[in-house]
């Protein structure tokens, strides 16, 4: 395994009186796609939100390239080169697609070569460039939120359920986009409920339950072991084929 770009050690996060994360240990290798899997409500989204600083870790450390970011404010964490795609997409509905993208280019004007590349990955964005983002369909919004994270090169992408509720054709577009990102050498921590997508993209996998990591290993191992899936996530491989 290559050296980790992100390491969580014993991270505990409370939301009000609820102890959501109860000591999460996680390692994201550099240049790989790391899957974060598990049933609904086990703490996957909270893990991503804790990394980006939306929720504060009460205990434990979050090392990004060796630097503890667990006490940094969200903007400072993002500016270290972490792109975040939230589960609810976080689209600015009253802004146009263009304005959403301009805003996402934090370090300056949009790089036209990178934008052209994104237009080839998501042609719909070009079609609706001047439209309010709120008028887009669910799939187009998801394309926008992924493209927004990709408009500048980041060192790590935190992506929360990018295929949730999407039609199969759009899911394959998303998967291809993420694969291209992976081929460029990006490090990605991906929360995904769609096991087929997870199996296709993931290099390594981490399975959560009840606010803790219950299994970590190679995605290949999890993908080929139906008993393991059944035990960890209540899944059977056949159900996802």
């Amino acid at each position, binding site marked *: 395994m290559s050296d980790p770009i992100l390491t969580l050690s014993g991270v505990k996060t409370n939301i009000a009186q609820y102890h959501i994360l109860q000591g999460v240990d996680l390692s994201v290798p550099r240049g790989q796609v790391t899957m974060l899997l598990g049933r609904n409500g086990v703490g996957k989204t909270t893990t991503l939100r804790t990394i*980006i*600083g*939306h929720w504060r870790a009460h205990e434990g450390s979050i090392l990004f390239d060796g630097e503890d970011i667990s006490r940094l*404010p*969200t*903007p400072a964490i*993002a*500016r270290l080169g972490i792109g*975040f795609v*939230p589960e609810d997409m*976080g689209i*600015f*509905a*009253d*802004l146009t697609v263009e*304005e959403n993208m*301009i*805003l*996402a280019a*934090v370090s300056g004007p949009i790089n036209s070569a990178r934008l052209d590349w994104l237009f*080839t*990955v*998501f*042609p*719909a964005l070009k*079609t609706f460039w001047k439209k309010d983002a709120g008028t887009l369909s669910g799939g*187009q919004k998801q*394309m926008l939120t992924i493209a927004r994270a990709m408009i500048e090169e980041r060192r790590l992408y935190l992506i929360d359920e990018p295929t949730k509720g999407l039609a199969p*054709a*759009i899911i394959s*577009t998303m998967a*291809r986009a993420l694969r291209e990102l992976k081929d460029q050498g990006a490090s990605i921590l991906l929360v995904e409920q769609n096991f087929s997508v997870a199996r296709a993209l993931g290099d390594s996998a981490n399975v959560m339950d009840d606010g803790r990591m219950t299994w970590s290993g190679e995605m290949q191992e999890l993908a080929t072991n139906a008993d393991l899936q059944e035990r960890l996530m209540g899944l059977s491989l056949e159900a996802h084929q």
Partner: protein
Amino acid sequence: MSAAPDHSPTMAQASLSQRLAPYAPVLLVFALMAFGLIAIPSTSSWLTLTVSGLAMGMMIFIMASGLTLVFGLMDVINFGHGAFVSVGAFVGVSLLLLLENMTGAPSLALNLTAMMVAIIGAMAATALMGWAFEKVIVKPVYGHHLKQILVTMGGLIVVEQLIIVLWGPEEIYITRPEALKGAVTFFGAALEKYRLVAVGIGAVVFLAMRWILRRTKIGLIVRAGVENGEMVEALGYRLRLVFVGVFLAGSALAGLGGVLWGLYQEVITAHMGNQSMILIFIVVIIGGLGSVEGCFIGALLVGLLQNYVAFLEPKVALISNIGLMVAILMWRPMGMIPVVKAK
């Protein structure tokens, strides 16, 4: 290279009412003016009242615009906003009194210079006060609406008392600069010069705000922050700094509004900001929380309606704005152009 599947949606032509819906608030202003034209027997009276209503609306807009942005951006209910109106009026009027020989001279250039000095002084003072107000009073109560109401209301009372300590408890009467006294006649209607100037200043402030919000990156950040502040921070922008900047700008605008309002009324009191808060809140609510455009349209509606109704049926004028608010909220419960979504 793989591409997303090609989408070729068929789109039906929207009905006329659907296409007009986004413009309905603007059309409402013209509809109200048309109503005034029909209801008021004399065209010259209508013109006088319309200019008066627009001037009043512009001044309310200037005072209210900062409040709506502050609420939209950081979910802060600032009942102390009126303090900036009062302080702006007192600082501005004090400067005008100091520059009496300029304001009393029959020279438009000297009069406007004195006005500019008063406006800049008032805006600088209220911006500075806004910075302190945010740091000391607002910052500790982020996310707690009830505490915000109580503590900002307390801040308003403290500032009012400080004004009384510094300037005394009496009302201060002020006469407008020489060149802004009197009226010009236009199509038989007497239009007060000062009101025309107020309309001009209000229009410039609105266009400048709109340009900043629509055409600059800082404007994009503010608009996006009003919609989803958490996501703006996740992109790497320090929303807190932006908020402080907006709070300062909003305070400075309230100060400008205070100077204009003081000269409009030709008398200032320590409580004038507190009294204007009712109108300011009505405008912010009917405009739609967080919306500068909504605030502008709401202010014009309030100004026009108050003037028309005061002319037609003076006793009803007292409740006309509340009635307008009720009607607008029954039509659009989130205000005319809501930006902040229900939380």
